[in-house]
């Protein structure tokens, strides 16, 4: 009961969606769209579990005064402030029928003042990490690492005048060795070959994993076959 029914549900839903790809007849035609809306609704219910866990962890920290408990107060208060502003549509010009993100609402103000700059700044950290990663990773230790280095180097030179001065003097027949042309070639030939092989591999991996899930060979959350 606890094990066979979940396996049956996964088998039925997975198979129905695969078959729906080939049958345009009424029930199957909108199966994919309907199931995706069902999935979104389940995900909204799951939010209660997730949000509840977040609050429990931080309130627990505050109660037992564990390490950095003072910061947990920031998380909990930020959470309730934004949730109240959003669900109650505080400050929304046309009240309940107005959009929850309408300009002038507290929710929009908090989004513009805190969420958006924090997100953009965390994203911009990548510029620093790209530099430290390339300093450490692009070393000609092995043949593979050398190819990685050379390919990245050609592309990195492109926007810099260094790239231009390094190769502009090459005579006409060697024109394809000019950095702009060379980087175009590296991007559209070896890079495309590698990406294509990876995508073919991934597609086969996903086809096989989906099949294992549908046939119940891969059980993860139900525990291995033994028990």
């Amino acid at each position, binding site marked *: 009961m606890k094990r066979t029914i979940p396996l049956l549900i996964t088998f039925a839903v997975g198979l129905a969606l695969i078959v729906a790809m080939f049958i345009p007849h009424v029930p199957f035609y909108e199966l994919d769209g309907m199931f995706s809306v069902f999935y979104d609704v389940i995900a909204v219910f799951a939010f209660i579990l997730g949000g509840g866990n977040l609050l429990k962890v931080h309130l627990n920290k505050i109660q037992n005064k564990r390490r950095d408990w003072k910061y947990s107060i920031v998380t909990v208060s930020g959470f309730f402030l934004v949730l109240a502003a959003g669900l109650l549509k505080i400050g929304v010009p046309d009240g309940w029928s107005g959009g929850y993100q309408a300009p002038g609402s507290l929710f929009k103000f908090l989004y513009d003042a805190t969420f958006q700059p924090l997100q953009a700044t965390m994203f911009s950290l990548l510029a620093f990490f790209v530099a*430290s990663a*390339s*300093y450490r990773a*692009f070393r000609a230790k092995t043949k593979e690492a050398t190819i990685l280095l050379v390919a990245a180097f050609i592309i990195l*030179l*492109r*926007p*810099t005048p260094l790239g231009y001065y390094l190769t502009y003097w090459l005579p006409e027949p060697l024109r394809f060795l000019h950095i702009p042309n060379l980087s175009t070639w590296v991007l*559209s030939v070896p890079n495309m070959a590698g990406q294509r092989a990876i995508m073919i591999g991934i597609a086969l991996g996903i086809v096989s994993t989906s099949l294992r899930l549908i046939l119940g060979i891969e059980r993860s959350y139900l525990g291995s076959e033994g028990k």
Partner: protein
Amino acid sequence: MAEAEKTEKTEGTEKKGTFVEKMGSVDRRIIFLLIGLAVLIPIIIEYTTAIPTSPLVQNLFDKIESLPPGSKVLMSFDYGPSTVPENQPMATAFTRHIFEKGHKLYLMALWATGPRQSEALIEDVISVEFPDKKYGEDWIHLGYKAGNQGLINTLLSDFTAMYTTDLDGTSIDEFPMMKGIGSLTDFDLILGLGSGFPGTKEWVQFAGDPGDIPVGGGTTAVMAPLLFPYYPRQIVGFLGGLQGAAEYEYALIKQYPKYEEKSRLASTSMGPQVWAHLVIVAFIIVGNITFFIERSRRKRY
């Protein structure tokens, strides 16, 4: 971080790291500092770079330069507000060059969000820098029509069937510059400014090839690789991302020095790119040189 520092310090104190070893494992925070400066300083001093123009961009520039004055150039705004930082400088550079050569500019859009960008171009560039150019004689604003590549198809056979009026609704028969425009084949050049679908690729596939019309244009950096296969046979040239726009600006300034001051939208934002890339390239070189020196030393013992 504390842990990492401890290990580094203990290593450092045991044997005084030679200069080479120190250069081999530079503390990541120094790299962060240099990248931060490499981006901030060009912004403060508004440093502009002279990006030498690659043939991909130069071909398109020479094409517009070589067209006889009064040629008809169609520019299509196929992008939204999110890619304005990359696409708008291209529209600006093209417009300046087209008016400088006395060509006729036809503005249209395959994207519903396109007209907003062409209106910004009219306000910021056309009405400010070229007040003498008359609407309906030197340039016209035709606006957006639905249909994606289907629209290009129809325009190829009968342009005026779809665009019976301009954006404000006045019939096209009243505009002298619209005379003789029966289909897309009557244009001397089509410039597709794109960031996705439909975009420059669709202009090549549905207008350039079937109608044998010269097509050029510009796309965002991420879409540029998709256009390489068409160059040079099916597309005159195109601008790839901000760097493409900066290269076109550089070519424009070289030809018409008076744009030195005004035409710097793309090249100023390319400043941080050049400096940051140079810092990264420098660190890669340093990292490899120290690696080779250490390896040769180890081989000798």
